[in-house]
């Protein structure tokens, strides 16, 4: 067993930013806008680092797919305690069309190359809300998956995962190697401290191209249009209950 954990970290627009749609409706404004690590990826990194602190795994490798700036996201993961990083360079049009299918092919290829035992991803990214990459990666590798994990326990060569589902909590036991996706309540990610940020500068980030991994980035999806949600209309005050019922009937709601 390699004892190696691969953690995927995605660079997204910071959750606190007010998103604006581009005037040509082709997407959202990203220039000059604050970006940071996807919050669910932070939880994934935290879980991986915790496993290493408990000496249940030997090495945590942070992976990000994107342009040059993705390296900042990897550095944050290194400051949180990951040992080394892999930056898969994707830029230009390839980056515009990069989606869960392409990323999962990359993760699967890296998992084989790095002999990973566990892959931990955030359950979804806050920009596209796809919630697909973990599941697709597991399928490509034919590995078991523990998604929406709110609790992870390593038990020999198996993993016990408590999953958040609509009805409550579901507990499953899966074999390793496996893919896990982190849900909100899995842990509280640590803040990067200055000494750790300084140490992270010395950790290695390898550069890899998708072609080196034998991955084709072609996407079969085309974004036609991005729009703001409809503007909220002003409410209306009525004087009596009869007026209210009348208005409800008028609008066909009653």
């Amino acid at each position, binding site marked *: 067993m390699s004892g190696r954990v691969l953690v995927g970290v995605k660079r997204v627009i910071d959750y*606190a930013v007010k998103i604006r749609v581009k005037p040509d409706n082709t997407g959202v404004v990203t220039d000059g806008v604050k970006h940071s*690590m996807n919050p669910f990826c932070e939880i994934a990194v935290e879980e991986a680092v915790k496993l290493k602190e408990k000496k249940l795994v030997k090495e945590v490798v942070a992976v990000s797919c994107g342009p040059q700036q993705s390296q900042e996201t990897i550095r944050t993961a290194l*400051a949180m305690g990951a040992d080394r990083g892999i930056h898969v360079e994707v830029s230009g049009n390839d980056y515009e069309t990069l989606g869960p299918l392409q990323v999962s092919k990359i993760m699967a290829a890296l998992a084989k190359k790095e002999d990973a035992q566990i892959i931990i991803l955030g359950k979804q990214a806050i920009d596209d809300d796809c919630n697909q990459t973990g599941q697709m990666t597991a399928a490509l590798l034919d590995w078991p998956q523990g998604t929406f994990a709110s609790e992870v326990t390593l038990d020999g060569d198996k993993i016990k995962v408590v999953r958040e589902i609509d009805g409550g909590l579901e507990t499953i036991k899966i074999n390793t190697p496996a893919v896990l996706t982190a849900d909100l309540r899995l842990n*509280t990610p640590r803040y*990067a*401290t200055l*000494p750790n*940020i300084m140490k992270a500068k010395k950790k290695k980030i390898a550069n890899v191209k998708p072609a080196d991994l034998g991955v084709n980035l072609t996407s079969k999806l085309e974004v036609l249009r991005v729009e703001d949600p409809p503007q909220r209309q002003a409410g209306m005050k009525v004087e009596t209950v009869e007026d209210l019922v009348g208005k409800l009937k008028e609008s066909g709601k009653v």
Partner: protein
Amino acid sequence: MMDCTCGRRAQKAAVDKVLSAFRTICGKDNVSLGEAIREQHGKDESVHRCRPPDVVVFPRCVEEVSALAKVCHDHNLPIIPFGTGTGLEGGVGAVKGGVCFSLRNMDQILDLHPEDFDVTVEPGVTRKALNAYLRDTGLWFPVDPGADASLCGMAATSASGTNAVRYGTMRENVMNLEVVLSNGTVIHTAGKGRRPRKTSAGYNLTNLFVGSEGTLGIITKTTLRLYGVPEAMVSAVCSFPSVQAAVDSTVQILQTGVPIARIEFLDDVMIDACNKFSSLSYPVTPTLFLEFHGSERSLEEQVSTAEEITQSNEGSDFQWARDAETRNRLWKARHDAWYAAQALRPGCKAYSTDVCVPLSQLPQIIVETKKDLLESRLTGPIAGHVGDGNFHCLMVVDPNDPDELHQVHLFTERLARRALAMDGTCTGEHGVGLGKRALLCEEVGPLAIQVMQGLKDSLDPRNLMNPGKILQRGEL
């Protein structure tokens, strides 16, 4: 009285005249006459009743603030700056009506310099928003009053928090301010863009405006001192047989040079409330909640020194924790104190008193205050930042009982005067606002008040900036 009403009517007419000027400056969507909006901007989280302004404007940049202020100045209209409305002393009440400047649309974080440990923010940025923004840099802004307040508002009230004992209050952590004066002039108190770690250049205008509660100018930018996020934290709890023992421990911990980050005191009434509210089982006796920041190695030393000291002061049940979940559990009582106090009497409102005395006087003032509470038959569990000699009685009072409200008011005055008699202050963190103007006179004396009034007259000759706060005037 007649003059007052005529004056207000004339002022309302003046407001109507300037509305179109306001709309031209900041857009008609950013000028509001709506009753709900005005009421929202006429009160804060204190017990003072709502005093709505005549109109609320929402400027988007300092140029708009300046232009709006000029218009108000030309028409003698009061100007009330508004951040998050989380103040505790009625500071935003428009006692003479006028124009509320709600600054929430100015919400940019500008000019972060991580190597220099400084950042500049606009008034719409709250302390939690700033710390969320900084989370990847390894830096934070530690001043933490209870509310998620506007940082410029915190500068205006010279706010403080639970970790002032280690990181200081706003006074120590504001490096520069951009301020719009009552006539629209824009100044930078330390010079535009300047942020040296120290300076001896001229009068300290920055700290003149810190704590001025909107009475000298509108703060539109503040440059703040940042700190490194602690590498590790340890929290601890310890019970004591008496207030004296708890305070003695505090003093000794500080004297041994332990750089303690938080040291919070809860009295037995408060602990009892917390036990009931959160189903805990702390011993019902004066309790200290401690927090240490530092590297792993320094924490070991800090905690063991503190534990020895508490033991030598008959402290018992010393518990400590390192990981986030257990730390939060240990401190749960302190975190829930506000709600636990209110739960003592459902349906009642809570009002927090706020005095600060030299550390050596703390046991005496707490003992006397508890005696007063008993004799007055008032509910007032005590929580305090003992490292600063600052404590709060959380007065739980029935808002519909005028008699009880009156009793609380008298109690608060007695408490403030007790603190003044012990070389302390009538307000450690919350400010003077509406309710403590008379106490301020007693505290600093008439000659210092005259100097304050002179400064006010010089910067705001028409008394337009947040009238009725901090300083008393004849007609109010």
